[in-house]
């Protein structure tokens, strides 16, 4: 992959130019799906865009006793990491990629969570600190399952290259891994039943409580980009590969939308779990699933 294609992927498709509208669209789909589940009409189509522009135009009231530069840096780091993760998705065929880009994608998808934790602790609000502690517990819980599932998928196909993974046909083992990833996604995206870090009725806005104006807009954007990256990863692993690139792109976007709808419906139908229940759920029930996936993968590799 040379510099031009890398820049084109980062900035145009599936990078920023595609990812930002897609992020707003997915945020709208999520809110609209919840509204329809509650027999409401819900927000207008452009609502996330309106929110974003409005937040850009708001002033930030002075914060007392907080290091300003670090607080300003976290949302920007989160947005750029999430945008980079989206740019790595193998949507277009022959788009390049390199050996081990799956590992880079996973690392970039993890950065926004770390930024949320750090932002909550550096804001020195008691509610933000509780939210950050919950986010940290959540990260430790779901990441074991998430990473085991990804490793089982990659090991079964003998590659850590996203493009080759996307082009190989999906085996039953891969479906097992994809289901484990899907179980982890609500926790990764902070939606019900794992919306612990930003539990709005308990700890106000969690780690975001001290943010206002343009910085809050960046957090909203990074959350949307996380949606695009996470659903895009699942779509890349499940969607069959077509020869026509435009058909590929359309099916990819449609599959991402379907995953967003599925997660939103689950979010609307469930209530928030307590933090110990969440940790137990991931460490006891889902870990079993992931260990099953990876052990069967290793056994298959030994046989061949």
């Amino acid at each position, binding site marked *: 992959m040379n510099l031009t294609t890398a820049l084109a992927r980062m900035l145009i498709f599936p990078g920023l130019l595609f990812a930002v509208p897609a992020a707003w669209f997915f945020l709208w789909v999520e*809110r609209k799906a919840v*509204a329809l589940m*509650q*027999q*409401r*009409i*819900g*927000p*207008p189509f*452009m*609502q996330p*865009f*309106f*929110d974003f*522009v*409005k937040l850009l*135009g*708001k*002033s*930030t*009231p*002075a914060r007392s006793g907080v290091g300003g530069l670090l607080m300003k840096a976290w949302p920007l780091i989160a947005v750029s990491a999430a945008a980079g993760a989206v740019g790595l998705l193998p949507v277009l065929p022959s788009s390049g990629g390199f050996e081990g880009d799956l590992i880079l994608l996973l690392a970039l998808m993890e950065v926004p969570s770390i930024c949320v934790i750090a932002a909550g602790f550096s804001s020195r609000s008691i509610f933000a600190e509780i939210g950050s502690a919950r986010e940290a517990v959540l990260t430790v819980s779901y990441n074991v399952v998430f990473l085991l599932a990804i490793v089982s998928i990659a090991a079964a196909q003998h590659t850590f290259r996203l493009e080759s993974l996307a082009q190989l046909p999906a085996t039953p083992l891969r479906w097992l891994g994809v289901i484990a990833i899907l179980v982890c996604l609500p926790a990764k995206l902070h939606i019900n039943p794992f919306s612990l870090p930003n539990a*709005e009725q308990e*700890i*106000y*806005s969690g780690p*975001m*409580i*001290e*943010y*206002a*104006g343009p910085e*809050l807009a960046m957090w909203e954007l990074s959350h949307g980009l996380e949606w695009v990256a996470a659903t895009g990863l699942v779509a890349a692993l499940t969607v069959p590969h077509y020869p026509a690139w435009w058909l590929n792109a359309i099916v990819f976007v449609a599959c991402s939308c379907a995953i967003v709808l599925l997660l939103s419906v689950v979010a609307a139908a469930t209530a928030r779990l307590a933090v110990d229940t969440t940790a137990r759920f991931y460490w006891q029930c889902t870990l079993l699933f992931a260990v099953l996936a990876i052990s069967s993968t290793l056994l298959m590799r030994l046989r061949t």
Partner: protein
Amino acid sequence: MNLWKRLMCSCRRRSPWLFHMNSGSCNGCDIELVASLTPRYDAEQLGVRLEGSPRHADILCITGPVTRNSVQAIKTVYAQVGSPKAVVAIGSCPATTNVFIDSRVLDGPLNRHIPVDVFVPGCPPRPDAILLGIAKAAEILAGPIGDEPPTPTTAVSESVEAQP
């Protein structure tokens, strides 16, 4: 009148985020405010979101006759809302102190302490009246086309920031 300003006005009108504050209310108006966010009235059609932090909000919804205890809290919260901001006084209490008038525990009405943009009278007001008040406050946020939105009085926020 450039395009960005026009877009900003439109976005401010369509995305009012609320922060709800109780200044000694009997809970009647609070229930009605929550009722206006329920599926029956569906305030999200207007882009309304109830936020947990005053720093995220555009519109401050205040209920209650303003007790002495709550005056300082009201001023602090008002200073924490980023401009442009609007204040909606929900119910008859913040407007006139209602049946609690002449009580010695009160320091009302509300507009003695912070500038109020919209009064929604009633004891309690109906949810649709509250929604109308929020929509009017959102219009005030957007401001007259071509002008900057009305800046709130700085006296209040300055006096609050001066105190520890």
